[in-house]
């Protein structure tokens, strides 16, 4: 078990290196001029006579490995280049927007885990019954409605028709407060910061803006989790040890909630973890629709405006988060399954 964790940790740098290599490989299609913005953080350097010198300096006309090496060195030092779309250093953009995305995904995943697993258990217990069939169709609908359609529908109904849930992250008045000197930003997640500052109206306003994106982002996930939980629950309920538990005279509630669910939760937990990671990718659509200033809407914007450094930076951050996230998921899995834990 410990050696499994150590093994995974040792592989981490290898994977990270492979990841950066892969990302940078795609820049081979770019001219040295297009690529240059990924190397410098100061826009003044990107003008005039400097350019040729810099291209020479970073070996952008030389072979791939030289370019890659120089880029990697910058990345490791936290220099992700200059974002042409937002006119700011990429690292600064990410620093501002990452907490917003994290806030959104955390709010989205927590109810998903509760609802998805609960519904999955319910569906499995009523296997082939009316509830199961209804949940199945609802879940399938979740799989079939693309996020951008669902998002637009939610926007249409709750903003266009009802005017309740506006896009963006905050109303104008709340923004004034948040970006004033009196408001201390601890985490960058506005709901938390508002509570820490004791400012309930701002908290409520931030929450109001979160509801619609959360709904859009989480629908697909809870449909997925429902399905996974349902099928692993069904598998668990078909096992011999369930028959043993019943033969012991345990009540159906104990049989389901103790003996079957514990086994079914092992795969469900892994899937929930991967969904959280998947959501970080899913925010691209959601944030764009609701004009939510997170890392997802930035990546879409950067891509649309050929902001190469922006896209590269976002890709590195996404890769990093995913790899570390997967590592945590794997270790968690090993920790909760006694067969792996002791194996």
């Amino acid at each position, binding site marked *: 078990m410990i050696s499994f964790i150590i093994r995974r940790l040792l592989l981490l740098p290898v994977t990270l290196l492979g990841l950066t290599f892969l990302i940078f490989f795609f820049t081979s299609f770019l001219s040295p001029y297009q690529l240059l913005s990924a190397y410098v953080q100061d826009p003044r350097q990107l003008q005039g006579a400097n350019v040729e010198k810099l291209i020479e300096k970073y070996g952008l006309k030389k072979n791939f490995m030289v370019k890659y090496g120089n880029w990697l060195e910058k990345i490791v030092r936290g220099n992700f280049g200059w974002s042409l779309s937002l006119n700011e250093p990429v690292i600064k953009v990410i620093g501002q927007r990452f907490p917003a995305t994290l806030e959104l995904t955390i709010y989205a995943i927590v109810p998903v885990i509760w609802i998805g697993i609960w519904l999955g258990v319910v569906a499995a217990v009523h296997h082939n019954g009316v509830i199961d069939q209804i949940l199945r169709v609802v879940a399938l609908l979740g799989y079939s409605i693309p996020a951008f359609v669902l998002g637009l529908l939610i926007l249409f109904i709750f903003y266009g028709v009802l005017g309740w849930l506006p896009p963006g992250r905050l109303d104008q008045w709340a923004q004034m407060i948040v970006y004033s000197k009196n408001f201390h930003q601890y985490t960058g997640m506005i709901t938390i910061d508002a509570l820490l500052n004791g400012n309930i109206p701002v908290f409520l306003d931030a929450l109001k803006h979160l509801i619609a994106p959360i709904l859009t982002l989480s629908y697909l996930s809870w449909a997925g989790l429902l399905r996974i939980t349902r099928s692993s629950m069904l598998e668990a309920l078909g096992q011999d040890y369930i028959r043993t*538990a019943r033969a012991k*005279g*345990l009540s159906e509630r104990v049989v389901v909630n103790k003996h079957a669910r514990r086994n079914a939760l092992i795969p469900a937990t892994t899937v929930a973890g991967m969904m959280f990671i998947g959501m970080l990718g899913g925010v691209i659509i959601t944030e764009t629709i609701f004009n939510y200033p997170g890392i997802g809407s930035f990546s879409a914007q950067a891509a649309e405006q050929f902001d190469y450094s922006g896209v590269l930076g976002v890709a590195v951050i996404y890769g990093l988060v995913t790899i570390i996230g997967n590592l945590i998921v794997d270790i968690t899995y090993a920790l909760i399954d006694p067969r792996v834990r002791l194996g």
Partner: protein
Amino acid sequence: MVKDVLLQVKNLHTVFHTEDGTVEAIGGVDFEVRQGETLGIVGESGCGKSVTSLSIMRLLPKGIGEVPQGEVIYKGKNLLKLSEREMRKIRGKEIAMIFQEPMTALNPVYTVGEQLAEMVELHLGMSKKEAYDYAIKMFEKVGIPMPEKRIYEYPHELSGGLRQRAMIAMMMSCNPNLLIADEPTTALDVTIQAQVLDLMRELLKEYNSSLIMITHDLGVIAEMADRVAVMYAGRIVEYADVVPLFKKPSHPYTVGLMRSIPRPDVEVDRLDSIKGVVPDLFHMPKGCRFSNRCPYAIDKCFEEEPPLVEVEPGHYTRCWRYQEMEELSKHWESGEEVGKTSK
């Protein structure tokens, strides 16, 4: 000295609702189990011996298996008429059950001690602490070395023999009146089987419990059973005390079964086999269910199913020609289906 009847099964029918239609898995099973005695149920796969035990315990898969007819009288009460709540008080406490595969019959995510403890907490009203102490005692009783350590281990950490011992400890923990063992040693090696059978015999004597031993192994039956029911294709075809059954089998199937096994104490040049295969549940012969494989079948056998009749006091058989059986069984025509052996 005739002992009290503990369990009486009368005209038990079980049907299964499958995708291809409803089939009768067992039809009209009758037998009784006396206090402190062992009833052996023997038969080949698919004969309905396991279904019988699950029907008694009311553990048939919900919505698939159903008992439309019959009575299971335990201590004067018909188990089939009890409410689910009342039945739960019987399961584990009054009637316990051991299964074939101790690996899958134990829950992989709970320690073996926990699985025993939850049962005595439920039925004997012990506290957690008492239950664990009791678990150590039971483990000691069934000969598991280092019980105070073993109760904290998971099923996969134990060997096959120890797992089955743990299972026996669990199922004997509430001192049941009747133990149903469904092929308890089939998955075990022969030296371990000897240990486990030995253990079961000792425990039964100590607790004065009755046993229903389900197996396909005539050797195990000869060693363990006082009375035997031979099942074939959902029917009891012969029912007698163990010695008369082996000495004077009066159903052609029993005769064939005994002749077709190689025995350590008798040397034969060639085994007698039963021709053909067990008919599947959807295509049962019209008359006697054994008629298509029986070397002694006459026209009547193909027309009408024989009743279970008493040949001698306490010895029942389901054959039209039982009176001639002693004479007939001297010659066995196995006549294997096709091929060179029959040329």
